[in-house]
């Protein structure tokens, strides 16, 4: 099963390396890691998307906890969650196909953020399925480059999920 972990860590040099190193050496799968500031100064929030059965997830969480720079580990998967990813895609597009692509992009609430002579850049946010669906539609036009941020997520509602 796919799990989204929200990990509060000390904003210290190498903290990303510590986490990635641990997951790698214990043979845990990483689909994506994103990291940025959190609500508390001095702490960063890492969102890790990983796969594994219950036992593996318990190990992931316990092993992460052993890192001194890890303050809190939450598995968001068993709670209502908002999970989003940002994607930028450069699609082949001449003057004739630009409007067509703009039409495809619109229902996804994506936007065209850059236009070149034979390509345009599309920006889209959403869950992974939505981003994948848009990619499938854009593929026939020729995808030149993709950059995705990986998932970031928060649990819904006012209450924090207990760790």
């Amino acid at each position, binding site marked *: 099963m796919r799990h989204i972990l929200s990990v509060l*860590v000390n904003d210290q040099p190498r903290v990303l390396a510590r986490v990635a190193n641990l997951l790698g050496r214990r043979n845990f799968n990483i689909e994506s890691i994103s990291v940025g500031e959190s609500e508390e100064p001095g702490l960063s929030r890492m969102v890790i998307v990983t796969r594994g059965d219950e036992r593996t997830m318990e190990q992931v969480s316990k092993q992460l906890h052993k890192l001194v720079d890890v303050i809190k580990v939450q598995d968001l998967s068993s709670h209502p969650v908002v999970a989003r990813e940002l994607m930028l895609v450069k699609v082949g597009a001449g003057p004739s196909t630009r409007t067509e692509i703009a039409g495809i992009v619109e229902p996804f609430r994506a936007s065209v953020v850059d236009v070149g002579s034979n390509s345009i850049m599309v920006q889209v946010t959403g869950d992974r399925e939505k981003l994948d669906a848009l990619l499938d539609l854009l593929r026939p036009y020729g995808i030149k480059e993709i950059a995705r941020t990986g998932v970031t997520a928060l649990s819904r509602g006012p209450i924090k999920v207990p760790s």
Partner: protein
Amino acid sequence: MPHPAIATDDRKEKVTEQKEYTGSEILLRCLIREGVDTLFGYPGGAVLPIYDSLYHKGIRHILARHEQGAIHMAEGYARITGKPGVVIATSGPGATNLVTGIANAQMDSIPLVCITGNVPQNLIGTDAFQEADITGITMPITKHNYFVTDVRDLPRVVKEAFVIASTGRPGPVLIDIPKDVSNAKAHLEYPEKVSIRGYQPTTDPHPLQLQKLHAAIAKAERPVILAGGGVVTSGADQELRDFAERTQIPVTTTLMGIGGFSGNHPLWMGMPGMHGTYAANHALLECDLLIGIGVRFDDRVTMGRLDKFAKGAKIAHIDIDPAEIGKNVDTYIPIVGDVKRVLQEALEGLPRSRSEGWLKRIEDWKRQYPLTFRPSEKTLKPQWLIRHLYETTGGDAIVTTDVGQHQMWVAQYFRFAKPRSFISSGGLGTMGFGFPAALGAQIADPDRLVICVTGDGGFQMTSQELAIAALENLPVKVVVVNNRCLGMVRQWQEVFYQERYSEVDLSGGPDFVKLAEAYGVKGLRARTEEEAKRVWQEALAHPGPVVIDFEVDPEENVYPMVAPGSGLDEMMMGDEET
């Protein structure tokens, strides 16, 4: 004990808080405040400021002949005292020479504080002379590590390092100090206490889990205790004895747990696993309740065959490290806490198990399948030798071992009655560990007899530390179980590779007697039981260090043995045994 001159010096300086110190002075003052009495290390460019401060400070420093020697000494010291061993090495090769020792300490939960110098910060990342990213290199093999960028952080970092190394599940902590930080000046305020937000080990057990444990014990008919290094680390040997006696549960001790439960106790079954006893392994196979105490269900015990291991048993697991619980085996009663605290609390209202019939069966197993070897008139049998060491020392000695056949024979034939007496490299299986660890142990406990049982292979990996034995007059008795080969590898080649002996012959020497003498250490040799008896007495009577070359039968193998991939039910008992 801090050096008296410095202790008073420090008190005086409390008044003059204004005074500034260099990073290296701060470091040493912090170490003294932590009660560090001995440093193990080796100098070099990046730690010149630290060694300059050491020149004035007068803490005892052991100048090992190789950084690996220094760190294994620190590990031996830590395993005896329970306090962190402290090592210093320079940047680059000095730091990388520590790596094996750090990994060893991580595997065996040995408290260490490792201090390395590094190039000045303006050169970091430039592949400067003797630059190595030791923080990156040791990230997966330390409990935690620090790269100090500001001299003002140093007191807090040192304090945290000692707290992290010595509490919870102990382990190695590395502090990497670039040279400019060692030279920079700051005020010294050493914190008495630190609170580390991301580090809060659970020491007290959950009462509900203890109730479940009691209930399971009361019902159990075939219970077993598997006791590991955690018992020794937390100093819970007496609690374990009370626990086992009151519940009437038989005990098997892992390699790391040896001495945590007396080898002379009637409830003891010996070591389990790959070279374990028949009784211990069969108890693990057939038990209905398995209580793991301070163990991690390592594959040398379970053989990785979890389908066969304690198949019909409920497993209760007591450990300070929550990540160990459920890592390898499914756990019915998880109990996170310090082993000593858990056992103390568990003793209250502890029921007796229904083990009468089970204990009889185990007694039968012990009687029917004891450890055996075929004695010989002509050659010196290594098993006989270890038993002789045991019988002549009353089991009172500290024994360190290296890694290989001799290590297993010590685990099998030397009966340890007390904790912190058997010092061996368990998790990493580090050849070269035994001899420097013995020196560290002797430094930690100058009055106890320290025997290092080592192999002719392993001894050569760190024998340069004979210089330290001689200089410091550390009366360690080095027993070289000399089979002229890499015995354990040879055994595997014999059993699993149809006797294709590939690169295991060490018959080229050296002459260990002459090697000892080259360092001014007494060297002795024995080839028969008679010689062995005489020479061993001579060694014990000698007040200084001795190396004894025991030329043993090179064809002897360690039995029983379970092949990797086999279950504990498939024990090879050794066909030539009687």
